[in-house]
């Protein structure tokens, strides 16, 4: 365990130094992220001005939904995104060998060892936006609902990570994975929509257990709001366990097909 902590510390210390060297790029990306969230919130604000209750849920809930999706995305990008996204590159250029020969757990080395420092700032911004939102719209929350919310956000991040791992594992089969990854990722653009737009049970089931779009935004919202949300906990735990197990087994199995010759 000590070895892993040391490795994690060293790798991410170097990552931090690299980030401070490219300050301009860091600030630019931060600005882009801020604009992104403002645009997403503005989208619902404008719709709300036009149709009010026609959106099915109150405007503050829609804002919480958007922020929850961003929070999940930022947590994923901070803890796992670097590793998961670089997997395709390792396969394409044959550089996976450098990881395979290290005497450590492959899953850890591949996906969990690299921290994205920029997202730490994003998380701080998300928290500030949450506080502004909760006070501006007088949303009633208590310690338990916030605790539940954090748990569901954590599980949603695990689901999102495992799902992304499964997508990027495709790079062992496909030479060019970018369009395939974009296609599957584009489903997650639906996560900022309220679940009520998926009218049929089949659609809701599909977007919970096959492509877990509803788990990312709508489940955390339900956890924060309490009420009829007890049903979500078994579903989100089931998704987290199922997707993580599949991602782990698939990684180990697919790596057996890796031939170290690039694609």
């Amino acid at each position, binding site marked *: 365990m000590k070895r892993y902590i040391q490795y994690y510390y060293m790798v991410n210390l170097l990552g931090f130094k690299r980030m401070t060297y490219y300050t301009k790029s860091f600030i630019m990306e931060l600005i882009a992220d801020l604009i992104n969230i403002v645009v997403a919130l503005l989208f619902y604000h404008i719709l709300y*001005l036009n*149709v009010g209750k026609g959106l099915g849920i109150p405007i503050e809930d829609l804002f919480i939904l958007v922020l929850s999706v961003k929070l999940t995305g930022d947590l994923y990008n901070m803890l796992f995104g670097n590793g998961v996204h670089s997997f395709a590159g390792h396969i394409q250029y044959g550089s996976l060998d450098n990881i395979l020969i290290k005497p450590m757990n492959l899953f850890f080395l591949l996906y969990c060892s690299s921290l994205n420092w920029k997202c730490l700032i994003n998380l701080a911004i998300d928290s500030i936006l949450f506080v502004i939102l909760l006070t501006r719209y007088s949303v009633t929350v208590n310690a338990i609902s916030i605790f539940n919310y954090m748990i569901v956000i954590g599980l949603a991040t695990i689901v999102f990570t495992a799902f992304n791992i499964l997508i990027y594992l495709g790079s062992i089969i496909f*030479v060019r994975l*970018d369009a395939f990854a974009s296609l599957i990722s584009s489903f997650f653009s639906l996560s900022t929509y309220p679940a009520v737009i998926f009218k049929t049970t089949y659609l809701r089931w599909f977007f919970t257990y096959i492509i877990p779009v509803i788990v990312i935004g709508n489940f955390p919202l339900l956890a924060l709001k309490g009420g009829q949300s007890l049903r979500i906990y078994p579903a989100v735990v089931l998704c987290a366990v199922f997707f993580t197990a599949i991602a782990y087994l698939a990684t180990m199995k697919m790596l057996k097909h890796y031939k170290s010759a690039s694609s």
Partner: protein
Amino acid sequence: MRNYYVALGIQTIKEAMAYRLNFILSFLVVIIPLAGQLLLSKYIYSMGYQIGSWQLNQLLAYYLIATIASEFFSIGTWWDIGNDIKNGGLSSHLVKPYSYYWHNFSVYYTLRVVSISFALMVAYIAYVVISGSLIPHIQANSILQFLILALITAPLSFLITYSLSILAFFFTDIGFIMKLLGILLPFASGNILPLDIFPTPIRVVLVKLPSAYLVYHPSCIMSGVYNWNEFVQLVGEALLWLLLFLFIVRWLWSKGRRSYEAIG
């Protein structure tokens, strides 16, 4: 020289076809966000509400056209140009007897024409599935207006792309511009919401920006919103943007050429 551009176009198609699956999948990407917009709109109307002055069928057709228009008239940074400038590859083009501008125009629009045919199919399927109607409500007049405007907006979108790409003469990393455009453009161009439902101060600015002439106005035209008088005014404004970007491109190119050192 015309033969060169035709051959280049054919070569571009062959190159794209080498990665067929990747190419086809990239068109399917447009269907998912479109499906989200259509589902949300249908839900709002099923609750008895209306978005702006748009009837449901009109709005669904708007989103369909906006998706296609944003594919065809897309703007951003063209990776090839940025890379040529950054790595010194531009030199090999400059010594050859063709225009670098038209060379890239051929490649860019060959890919667009191929992609639009796929985008049309994909968007039409999404429309039929969500709306339940086989024929979008589009009038012949609207198609004529759209084609006239397309003659201006197609070169305009390329001029904007070209001018953004040759910023690589002055900046080491133009990737940020692409990222920012990817966030702002769908919103500012009317791709995710028709601009006329925006609050007045934002709307009056956005409808006059070039991005609106690439997606919002063409989509409104196809939805039959403009009469001929309004259309003529629109064409005049689009021409002004075209001239402005023509000037900007010439200015940036001549300034960039002077600073280009051919060593990457």
